[in-house]
């Protein structure tokens, strides 16, 4: 069989669409919600990166004399009640938002997925223990655990990130265990066991790749929830501390002036909406693009 083999092996190198990696970007650019989500997410990310090197004004300088100015050439979106430039606040706020989201989801994802995979692979009392512990954690709302943490460690960004992260673990445990159990029941896992693979290898090679798309979508939803949770904690004074700006704080500062200057609430609200929408579209797009079964249709 070697002679025809080499001949067809040469042609296989240019066979289109068969490999997921080569065709990925081409398919990605044709996927509308992925492109839109990526653009919106990149705008937020770009704003955060830009704030590291440049902002129109300092985001922390207070200038009471020019408070609540309407949009102008100097202040593109006007100023807030303390005379801070809105554009600068939004740019720096993006940084806090992304940091809280990334770290909190990172905590939830890494612990949650590991525990969920262990629960699905081990079954028995290990699974029971992990699930009851996550139920226990889930019973405390993020706000409550943040208050408890703040009482011990003092309020601040680290406290709010930790609280949100811990709060996210049980969600990831449940999603991971549920979808991993479904994969464990599939025949190809039995076939993999019949081929001599242990439960660790099966978890890494068969279970994880098959639930990855679910986890990605869940992570984007959790990212959005983390942004909202951060806003809630900031409102309670447990999150980002002044003078460090954040979208959640801006929103809550604007609350008292809602009838006087409604646009002050609209700007951070729109920023949060853009970030959340972008992440959700990005997650949806990735789910489609990462699944080889859907690769053909798009």
């Amino acid at each position, binding site marked *: *069989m070697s002679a*025809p*083999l*080499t001949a*067809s*092996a040469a*042609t*296989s190198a240019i*066979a289109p669409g*068969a*490999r997921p990696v080569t065709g990925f970007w081409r398919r990605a650019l044709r996927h509308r919600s992925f492109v839109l989500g990526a653009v919106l997410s990149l705008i937020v990310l770009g704003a955060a990166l830009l704030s590291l090197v440049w902002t129109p004004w300092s985001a922390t300088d207070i200038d009471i004399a020019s408070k609540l100015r309407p949009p102008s050439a100097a202040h593109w979106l006007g100023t807030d009640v303390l005379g801070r430039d809105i554009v600068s606040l939004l740019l720096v706020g993006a940084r806090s938002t992304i940091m809280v989201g990334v770290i909190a989801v990172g905590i939830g994802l890494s612990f949650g997925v590991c525990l969920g995979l262990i629960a699905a692979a081990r*079954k*028995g009392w290990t699974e029971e223990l992990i699930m009851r512990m996550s139920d226990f954690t889930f019973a405390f709302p993020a706000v409550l655990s943040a208050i408890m943490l703040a009482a011990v460690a003092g309020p601040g960004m680290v406290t709010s990130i930790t609280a949100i992260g811990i709060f996210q673990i049980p969600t990831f445990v449940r999603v991971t265990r549920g979808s991993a159990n479904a994969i464990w029941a*599939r*025949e*190809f896992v*039995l*076939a*993999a*066991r*019949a*081929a*001599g*693979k*242990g439960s660790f290898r099966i978890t890494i*090679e*068969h279970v994880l*790749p*098959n639930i990855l798309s679910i986890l990605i979508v869940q992570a984007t939803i959790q990212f959005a929830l983390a942004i909202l949770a951060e806003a809630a904690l900031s409102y309670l004074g447990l999150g980002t501390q002044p003078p460090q700006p954040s979208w959640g704080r801006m929103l809550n500062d604007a609350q008292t002036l809602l009838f006087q200057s409604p646009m002050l609430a609209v700007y951070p609200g729109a920023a949060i909406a853009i970030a959340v929408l972008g992440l959700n579209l990005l997650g949806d797009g990735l789910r489609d693009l990462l699944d*080889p*079964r859907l690769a053909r249709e798009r």
Partner: protein
Amino acid sequence: MSDAPLIEVKDLGVRLNTSRGPAQAVRGVNFALRRGETLGLVGESGCGKSVTALALMGLLPESAVISGSIRLDGAELIGLPDAAYCKLRGNRISMIFQEPMTALNPMHTIGHQVAEPLRRHTGVSAAEAQLEAIALLDRVGLPDAAKRVDAYPHQFSGGQRQRITVAMALACQPDVLIADEPTTALDVTIQGQILDLIAGLVEERGMSMILISHDLGVIAENVDRMMVMYGGTVVESGATDAVFARMGHPYTQGLFRARPRLGARKGTRLKTIAGTVPELADLPAGCTFADRCAIVEARCRAALPAVVDVGAAHGVRCIRTDVSMGAGGSSA
């Protein structure tokens, strides 16, 4: 090789914990298989065929209680630690499953899945394994194997996928191949092709094979010896020719009568075996077939009948073989 059996199963019993309580899924199964021999397991759904196969593979759920002995080349497999069993699975004992549509991981290329057992058990490089995988896929008759090695399972038909699972199972040249209803999910025309392929490979590589099927025709054409299972016990066993020539157990006879026949007059009803398979959770004390048997007696229900030899290496677990194998008893 030698005359010593490759696989020797003695008094195998499996008790499963089901939601309806413990169920004796398999009891008193004995057989020995020499290198190159083929054995067929036939019976209805839930008769213990697949449980026997999974017991051989060491893949029963952890709650299952196994008794008796399974020896591979003289080494006891029951109670073997999982790590040691992992080294045997896919390497010395392989299995082909019923559903080719679900037996392949949708996320990996077929080349990767066929090469995987090779890399795992023989330690060859990725490139060598890939070449070997192409050769295997070529051997199992996958058209354009070299071109399609990087394709995903959803891009193949059911018959092609079953060819791929055969290639996976045979990658490491196992001594024993267990084929659990390998063609049940396929079209009739494809069934024959796959069975011929498996039979050819078994002969070519000198493997032993255990073929599980509910189809007497498949068993008749593909194996040297056969065992008929019912309610977790082997009710009849022997050389395939001998069993088909003189069926001893009323269940085997019923199974044979129940098969559809070509050329039967239109409107002819299929014969059935009255009643249903007993629940494994509450099996009767005596013969498991007693409730559906036409020639049942009181003593059939007293205790599980012993195996009666009715020919050379042809055993029947029935105390009424004088009647069942008497005039007009066999076939019909």
